[in-house]
C-alpha cells in the first residue's frame, strides 16, 4: 500500500472482526470439548472400567495434562471475548432486562439466559476444573467419591443444566450469526437444538445417578 | 425567533421537491427542504404501479416514442392540458427514467422469451427479443396506446423516493423534517420565504429564501374517501391561496381512482388491471367491455370510475355494510405473478381485508385519488402572480394532466418537472439578489403567532376543528364526487360557506403546547375549507363535462365555451373564490377531437355537435 494512502485512509481496525471470529471459534472449540467431555464422563455408564480406560488413555498420551490447561485457557479467552457483549453497566442491565420482559421474544430471552449461565459457568467451571486437574489421575472411583460426598452432587446439578443450556444456545447462535441457519431452516434447527440440549442434560443426570450408585 | 436563510426553500420533500433541490444543489446553491414527515415517508412512496416514459424497449411498447406518449397524454387530459408542457414532459421522461436508473433504481428488466399476459381476463402470448434483454421493461396502464409504465414490482414510488432521497443524502442537502409551512412571506410582488411551525417543538421559524418552491403534493384529504395519505391536506395550495394573488388552476379537476379497497380506500394499483385483472359485478361477470368495447378495463381512470358508479346505480353492485362495491379479480394472474409483481397488493389485501387475492375477489370502489389542480405555474414552474415562487409535482398545476391524469404520468411528472423547474430556478437564482425586508418578516411571524394564541385562548370562539373538517369532507364526497350536477354543487357551495364561517371561530380544546396536533389542523382548517370551496364553486361554474369533471346536467364536452382553465384566487374577507379563466393551451399541436374511449358527445370549437 502506498504511503500517502495509508496516511489519508488509515486501514480500518479489524479488531472487532478478529474478536468476533475468535469468539465463535473458541465457542465452537468449547462445544466440541464439552461433547468429548460428555463421552468421557458418561462412559461410566458402561462400567467404571470403561471410564478408567478412557481416562488412562488421555493421561498416558498427556492429553489431560496438556489438554486440561489448554482448555482452561480457551475457556478464559472465550470469557474475555464474550464478556465484551455482556452488559456490566447497571443501566444496560436494566435496559436489556426490561426490554426482554416487554418483548416476549424467545431468541432475546435465549441470549439473556446465555449471558446469565455464562457467569455461573465462569465461576463453577473454574472451580471444577481446578479441582479435577489438581487431583489427577481421573478415575471413576474418585469421581464417584466426590459426588457421593454431597457437595459436588449439588454443584453438578446446578452446573450441568447451565452448561448444556449455554452450549445448546451457543450452537444455535453460531449457526444463526454466521448464516449457516437460514430463514427457512431456523424453526427446524431450533427444535433440533432443544432436543439435543434435553438429551444431554438427561445423559448427564443418568451419569450423576450412576456415580451415586457406583461402589467406591 | 429562529430565522434560517437559504437560496432555495423547498416546501415539500417528496419526489418533486427533492428532485428540484438536487438540481439546485448540484449547481452550487444552497437549498433546504421542509417536510411534515421524514422525506422518505412522503406520499410519493405510496405510488405502486409505474412511471411513464416512452423507452419502447419491451415488445408491447415497440415503436413507442414521445409522440405517442404525447397523444395519449393530451387525449387523457381531454384536451385540458397545456400542450407545450405536455410536449416538454414526454420528451424528457425517457431521460428521467434512465437517470433514475443510473442513481440506483432496480427497474424491472426485460426477460427474453415467450410469456403469457392477460387482457380482459384472457391469456395471450408475447415474445420479448433476445436483443433487448436486460433493458428497462414496462407494463400497460389505462389510457395508453403502448406499454410504457416502467416499474419496480409494485413499489415504484417507494424505490423512486428512496433513490431520490439517497441522492439528497449524498449531496448533503439539508432537510428539516417535521416542519410545516403555514404561510408564505411576500409583499404582494415577491415571495421571500415562509413561516413554518416545527412539529417537534411547536415553535415558529422564519425561512428566508431567494426562491421558494411549493412541492407539497396532492390535497385529497379534503375528501372523506381518498387514497391519499393523511398529511395530504393541501398545505401548499392553501398558503398560495392565502396570498390573494397566486391562483389555483383547475381546482374542480379531481381524479377518482377506480380501485380503492372497501372500506379503507387504500389503493390497489392500476397495474392490477394493466397486468390483466378484471372488474366484476354482483354476478361475478365482467361489464367494462360492454361499455368500452375497445379498452374495457383499461380505459382512462375517469371513464372506468364513471362506468363503475353507473353500473352500481343500475343495481349491479355488491351490497355491503359499507355501501355498494364491485369486485376486482386478479386470481387468474396466478400466485407467482401476484407474489412477485403485485406483492404490495397481496399484502394490502391480506392485512386490511383478510382477503387472499390469489384465491379471492377484492372489493373495490372508486375513491378520490389525484388533484390535477394546484398552484398554477407557467411552463418554467414559476407561479402566477409572485416573483420567486415556484411549484412542482402534484401540488402544481403545471398542467400536463388537464382534466384527467394518466396512470404513471404523475411519478414521471415529479421527476421531469423537478429537473426542468430545477434548472429554471438555478437560472433565476443566478440573476437574483437577496433583499429582505425585516418588518415584513416580523409582521408575518407575529400574525401567525397571534392566530395561534387566539386559537389557544378561544378568543374567536369554540368551534371544534375536527367537526368542521369532517363535515367538509362529507360535503365534497357526497356532492362534488364523480357525477356532478348543478343542484348538488350549489348545495355543496352553500354548506361549505357555512363551514367557512365557522372556521373563523375555531378554538382549541387542548392546551396547544408543543407539537399539538389539534393546533396543526386548526391552522389549516380555514384554508382547507377555502380550497374545498374552490373545488365546488369551480365545478358549479363549469357547465360541461370534461375528463373527470362529469356533469349530469351538461353531458357534452364543450370546446366552444370551456376549452379553458379555471384560475381561482381568494380575496380576504370574501366567502367565495374569484374565478378567472385562461385558454387551456396557447400552443395547439393536437386539435381537440375524440379520445377514443368514454362517451363522446362534443360541442366543437365552432359549435358543431358531435356524437350521441
Amino acid at each position, binding site marked *: 500500500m502506498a504511503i500517502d494512502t495509508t496516511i489519508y485512509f488509515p486501514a480500518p481496525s479489524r479488531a472487532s472482526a478478529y474478536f468476533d471470529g475468535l469468539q465463535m471459534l473458541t465457542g465452537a472449540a468449547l462445544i466440541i470439548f464439552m461433547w468429548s467431555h460428555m463421552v468421557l464422563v458418561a462412559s461410566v455408564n458402561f462400567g467404571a472400567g470403561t471410564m478408567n480406560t478412557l481416562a488412562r488413555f488421555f493421561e498416558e498420551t498427556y492429553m489431560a495434562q496438556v489438554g486440561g490447561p489448554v482448555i482452561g485457557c480457551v475457556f478464559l479467552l472465550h470469557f474475555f471475548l464474550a464478556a465484551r457483549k455482556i452488559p456490566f453497566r447497571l443501566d444496560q442491565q436494566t435496559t436489556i432486562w426490561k426490554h426482554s420482559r416487554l418483548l416476549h*421474544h424467545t431468541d432475546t430471552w435465549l*441470549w439473556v439466559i446465555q449471558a446469565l449461565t455464562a457467569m455461573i459457568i465462569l465461576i463453577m467451571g473454574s472451580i471444577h476444573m481446578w479441582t479435577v486437574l489438581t487431583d489427577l489421575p481421573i478415575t471413576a472411583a474418585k469421581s464417584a467419591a466426590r459426588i457421593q460426598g454431597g457437595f459436588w452432587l449439588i454443584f453438578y446439578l446446578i452446573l450441568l443444566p447451565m452448561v448444556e443450556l449455554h452450549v445448546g444456545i451457543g450452537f444455535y447462535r453460531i449457526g444463526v450469526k454466521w448464516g449457516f441457519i437460514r430463514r427457512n431452516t431456523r424453526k427446524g434447527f431450533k427444535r433440533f437444538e432443544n432436543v439435543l440440549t434435553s438429551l444431554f442434560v438427561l445423559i448427564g443426570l443418568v451419569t450423576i445417578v450412576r456415580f451415586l450408585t457406583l461402589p467406591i | 425567533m429562529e430565522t434560517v436563510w437559504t437560496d432555495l426553500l423547498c416546501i415539500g420533500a417528496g419526489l418533486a421537491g427533492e428532485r428540484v433541490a438536487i438540481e439546485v444543489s448540484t449547481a452550487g446553491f444552497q437549498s433546504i427542504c421542509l417536510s411534515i414527515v*421524514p422525506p422518505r415517508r412522503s406520499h410519493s412512496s405510496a405510488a405502486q404501479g409505474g412511471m411513464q416514459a416512452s423507452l419502447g424497449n419491451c415488445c408491447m411498447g415497440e415503436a413507442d416514442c414521445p409522440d405517442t406518449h404525447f397523444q395519449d397524454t393530451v387525449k387523457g387530459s381531454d384536451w385540458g392540458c397545456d400542450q407545450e408542457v405536455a410536449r416538454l414532459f414526454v420528451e424528457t421522461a425517457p431521460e428521467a427514467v434512465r437517470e433514475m*436508473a443510473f442513481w440506483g433504481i432496480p427497474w424491472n428488466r426485460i426477460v427474453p422469451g415467450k410469456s403469457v399476459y392477460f387482457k380482459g381476463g384472457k391469456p395471450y402470448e408475447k415474445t420479448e427479443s433476445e436483443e433487448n434483454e436486460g433493458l428497462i421493461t414496462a407494463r400497460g396502464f389505462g389510457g395508453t396506446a403502448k406499454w410504457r409504465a416502467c416499474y419496480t414490482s409494485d413499489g415504484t414510488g417507494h424505490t423512486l423516493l428512496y433513490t431520490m432521497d439517497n441522492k439528497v*443524502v449524498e449531496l448533503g442537502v439539508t432537510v428539516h423534517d417535521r416542519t410545516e409551512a403555514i404561510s408564505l412571506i411576500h409583499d404582494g410582488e415577491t415571495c421571500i420565504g415562509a413561516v413554518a411551525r416545527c412539529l417537534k417543538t411547536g415553535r415558529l421559524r422564519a425561512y428566508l429564501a431567494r426562491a421558494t418552491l411549493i412541492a407539497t403534493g396532492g390535497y385529497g384529504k379534503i375528501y372523506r374517501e381518498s387514497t391519499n395519505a393523511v398529511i395530504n391536506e393541501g398545505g401548499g395550495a392553501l398558503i398560495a391561496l392565502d396570498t390573494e394573488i397566486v391562483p389555483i388552476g383547475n381546482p374542480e379537476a379531481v381524479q377518482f381512482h377506480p380501485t380503492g379497497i372497501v372500506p379503507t380506500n387504500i389503493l390497489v394499483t392500476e397495474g392490477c388491471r394493466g397486468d390483466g385483472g378484471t372488474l366484476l359485478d354482483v354476478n361475478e361477470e365482467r361489464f367494462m367491455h360492454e361499455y368500452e368495447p375497445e379498452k374495457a378495463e383499461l380505459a382512462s381512470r375517469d371513464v372506468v370510475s364513471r362506468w363503475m358508479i353507473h353500473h352500481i346505480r343500475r343495481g349491479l353492485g355488491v351490497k355491503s355494510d359499507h355501501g355498494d362495491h364491485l369486485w376486482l379479480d386478479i386470481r387468474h394472474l396466478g400466485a407467482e405473478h401476484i407474489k412477485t409483481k403485485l406483492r404490495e397488493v397481496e399484502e394490502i389485501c391480506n*392485512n386490511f381485508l383478510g382477503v387472499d387475492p390469489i384465491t379471492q375477489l377484492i372489493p373495490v370502489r372508486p375513491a378520490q385519488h389525484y388533484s390535477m389542480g394546484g398552484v398554477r405555474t407557467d411552463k418554467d414552474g414559476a407561479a402566477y402572480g409572485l416573483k420567486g415562487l415556484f411549484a412542482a409535482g402534484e401540488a402544481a398545476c403545471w398542467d400536463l394532466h388537464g382534466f384527467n391524469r394518466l396512470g404513471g404520468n404523475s411519478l414521471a411528472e415529479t421527476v421531469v418537472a423537478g429537473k426542468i423547474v430545477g434548472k429554471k430556478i438555478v437560472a433565476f437564482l443566478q440573476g437574483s439578489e437577496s433583499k429582505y425586508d425585516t418588518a415584513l418578516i416580523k409582521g408575518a411571524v407575529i400574525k401567525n403567532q397571534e392566530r395561534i394564541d387566539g386559537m389557544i385562548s378561544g378568543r374567536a370562539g369554540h368551534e371544534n376543528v375536527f367537526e368542521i373538517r369532517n363535515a367538509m369532507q362529507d360535503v365534497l364526497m357526497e356532492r362534488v364526487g364523480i357525477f356532478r350536477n348543478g343542484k348538488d354543487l350549489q348545495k355543496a357551495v352553500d354548506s361549505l360557506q357555512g363551514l367557512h364561517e365557522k372556521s373563523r371561530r375555531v378554538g*382549541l380544546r387542548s392546551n396547544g403546547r408543543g407539537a399539538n396536533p389539534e393546533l396543526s389542523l386548526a391552522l389549516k382548517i380555514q384554508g382547507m375549507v377555502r380550497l374545498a370551496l374552490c373545488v365546488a364553486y369551480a365545478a358549479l361554474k363549469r357547465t360541461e363535462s370534461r375528463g373527470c369533471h362529469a356533469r349530469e346536467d351538461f353531458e357534452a364536452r364543450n370546446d366552444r365555451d370551456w376549452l379553458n382553465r379555471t384560475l381561482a384566487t381568494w380575496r380576504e374577507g370574501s366567502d367565495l373564490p374569484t374565478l378567472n379563466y385562461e385558454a387551456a393551451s396557447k400552443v395547439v399541436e393536437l386539435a381537440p377531437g375524440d379520445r377514443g374511449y368514454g362517451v363522446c358527445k362534443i360541442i366543437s370549437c365552432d359549435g358543431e355537435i358531435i356524437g350521441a
Partner: protein
Amino acid sequence: MGRELTFHIFRYDPEDPDSIPHTDIFIMEEKENMTLFIALTQIREEQDPSLQFDFCCRAGICGSCAMVINGRPGLACKTLTRELPKEITLMPLPVFKLIADLSVDTGAWFRAMNEKVGSWIHTSKKFDPSAREERMDNALAEEIYELERCVECGCCVAACGTANMREDFVGAVAMNRIARFMMDPRDERTEDEYFEVIGTDEGIFGCMGLLACEDVCPKNIPLQDQLGILRRKMGWNTVKHLFRFGSS
C-alpha cells in the same frame, strides 16, 4: 362485534413543562375491521385532541406509524384490533428520541444512518443523458428490490436488544441497506470499503443474533439471511487480509 377496548397509552410531552411521563387510559367500542389507526384517530378526535402519534399513508407502506403494541414493535396502521386482546398497551418506540406520547424522531436517526452507511450508489461514472441505460439481469433487479423494500419504520431497531443497550449500534436496517448496495453492480465500492463502514462492533460484529429484527419486520425483509451473509463476507474479508498481510 362491539368488544370494549381499553387503551393504556404512554403520555409525555417534553415540550410541555407541566407534563410528566404517565399512562392514560382510553375506553372505546370496537368496530368491524378496526385498525389502530382508526382507533387512535377516533381517540384524538373524541377524547383527547392533544394525543400525539404519527400516521401518514395508513396503508402499511410509509413506515411512519411504528410503535410498541403490547410489547412488540409494529406498524399501528396495519394492526387490526381484532388480533389484539381487550387490553391494549401502546408505547413509543425505544432507541429513538421521544417527541411526545407515541411519536418518536425516526427522521433524524435514519438520516444519520443513511449518511453513515453511504446509502447511495458510489460510482465514478457520469450520467450520459443520450445513452441507453445499462443492462441488468431482471432476477438481480428483483433481488435488489427485495432488500430495497425496507420502509425505515425502525421496528427492527427498537426490537433489538443490542441497539437498546448500545446506542452506537447501527441496527439490522443499516446492515440490510449495505447488503443491498453490495449486491448492486452499479455501486463500485470494494469489499474493503464496505468493511470500513460495517466491519465493526457498531456494525455487523456487534450483532448478537437476537433475531428480534427478523421477527418483527413488518415488511418481512430477509434480515436474518442478510446478516448471516454479511458476517461471513466480512469475516472472510478479514481472513483474506490476514494472509495478504505479509505479501503486500
